[in-house]
């Protein structure tokens, strides 16, 4: 299977501190790839620099073999990469529908079919179309954040901690949705604290520690790995 996205030697520093110290990743087309690791390991920074909102010090990021490192966020969105940010970050002062329209900001074609598509995935959003996004529950906001990202018709959807702060039942729904989206042909790059669930659905996984990739393998391999079990899955030896 060919790689849709290749990241080589990504280095990002914040005010003199290197948050990401030269990582390389390969994201095969049509797969779910997860990046796990503890707080402050540099996972969010990695996704933000792929999305172009954080400038990398040094990087090569290839989308279908074409360099996109250093491009502006709007270029990267229109190239087909979207990021669902950590903490959902819906626009609270906009209605659900307006949030979805913002997701399709760069598109000039009709978005009617896509609205129907995301309302099909998340019927709750259809019911709350005219409500301000700030009044939604946490789970609904997360669904809106995912739906908004889908409105840009991405080829790759990156998600930063989609299960953060949500009730276990809602977390299960979110993971079901991730699988559904992936089955429809969208490549997923997922960051999770909930390593157990993430590794179960991931085709491929990376472990990141203090700015470096320390382990990689299939989801199953890492689930069985002793040091991963100990550090991220809360199981003793």
């Amino acid at each position, binding site marked *: 299977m060919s790689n849709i996205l290749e990241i080589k030697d990504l280095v990002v520093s914040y005010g003199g501190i290197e948050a990401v110290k030269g990582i390389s990743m390969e994201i095969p087309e049509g797969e779910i790839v997860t990046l796990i690791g503890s707080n402050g390991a540099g996972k969010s920074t990695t996704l933000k620099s792929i999305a172009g*909102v954080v400038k990398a010090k040094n990087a090569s990021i290839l989308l279908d073999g074409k360099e996109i490192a250093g491009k502006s*966020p709007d270029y990267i*969105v229109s190239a087909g990469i979207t990021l669902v940010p950590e903490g959902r970050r819906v*626009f609270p*002062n906009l209605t659900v529908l307006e949030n979805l*329209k*913002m997701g399709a*900001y760069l598109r000039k074609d009709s978005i009617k079919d896509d609205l129907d598509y995301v309302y099909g995935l998340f019927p709750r959003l259809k019911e709350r179309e005219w409500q301000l996004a*700030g009044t939604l529950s946490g789970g609904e906001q997360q669904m809106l954040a995912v739906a908004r990202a889908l409105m840009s018709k991405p080829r790759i959807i990156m998600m930063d901690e989609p299960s953060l702060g949500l009730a276990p039942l809602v977390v299960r729904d979110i993971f079901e949705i991730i699988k559904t989206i992936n089955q429809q042909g969208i490549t997923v790059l997922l960051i999770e604290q909930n390593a157990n669930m993430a590794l179960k659905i991931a085709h491929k996984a990376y472990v990141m520690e203090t700015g470096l990739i320390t382990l990689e393998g299939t989801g199953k391999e890492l689930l069985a790995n002793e040091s991963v079990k100990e550090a991220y899955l809360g199981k003793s030896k």
Partner: protein
Amino acid sequence: MSNYVQLLLSGIAVGSLYALIAIGYTMVYGILRLINFAHGDMFMMAGFFLIYIAAIPNMPIWGALLLTIALTVLLGFLIERCAYKPLRSAPRMSVMISAIGVSYLLQNFATYFTGGLAQAYPAIPLISNKIEIFGVSTKLITVITPILTIILVVALVLFIKYTKIGMAMRAVSKDFETSQLMGIKINRVISMTFIIGSFLAAIGSIMYFSYYEQVSPTIGAMPGLKAFVAAVFGGIGSIPGAVIGAYLIGICENIIKSFPAIADLSNAFTFVLLIIILILKPNGLFGEKLSEKV
């Protein structure tokens, strides 16, 4: 009776002018969290633009008006690009100091260029004509100002509510980074905000100086400050708030001016009002709450 009508008419007219300036303050604050101290001076510059352009031989008055608006908008756009955009990731205080710098730059430039003396504003035909309503004789501008202001405010509110760029403005005002993730070019949205603010300031300037008939290099300061108070009163960031605040200040000021014993205190009233609002209701009438659902 006619005395009260006179007071109310001029109060509403002055309030409308404050409203047009206040919108510029409040929109820029809503997006950049910046008090654009140069905004009052933009208003002054627009005044001088018309004086100099109207003095060009064979220049029709409508041409001078359009050119004045265009130049003011261009100036607002350039100020943002040169003085604020390079400081986008700097602390907010730096941008504010830059704004104060631009304010003094404009005032001193105008003093240097004009010699510092007040200059007479050209009479614009039709709107400077006298009319009589309810037994009160006044300039037509007193009546046109509130009507035009309301039309512009309604148009602006609809623009922000229903257009894509208006939606983007609301999105950017809440969250820069997420807006970028949507592919919104935030610099364009910010430029648009300054363009709208400068446009309204230019219209306000034309009407204000048609009424007061003189422009001097520091004349922008007082209406600018009062418009700022209006914006704070209404809840900075809120357009309807700024408009209501502006009318309130305009009308109260004119009522105070009508009592000879306290007429000199009409400016002081505005700032006492500011202090009271800041103590009692720091977010203003329609201000956003600071707490956010996480």
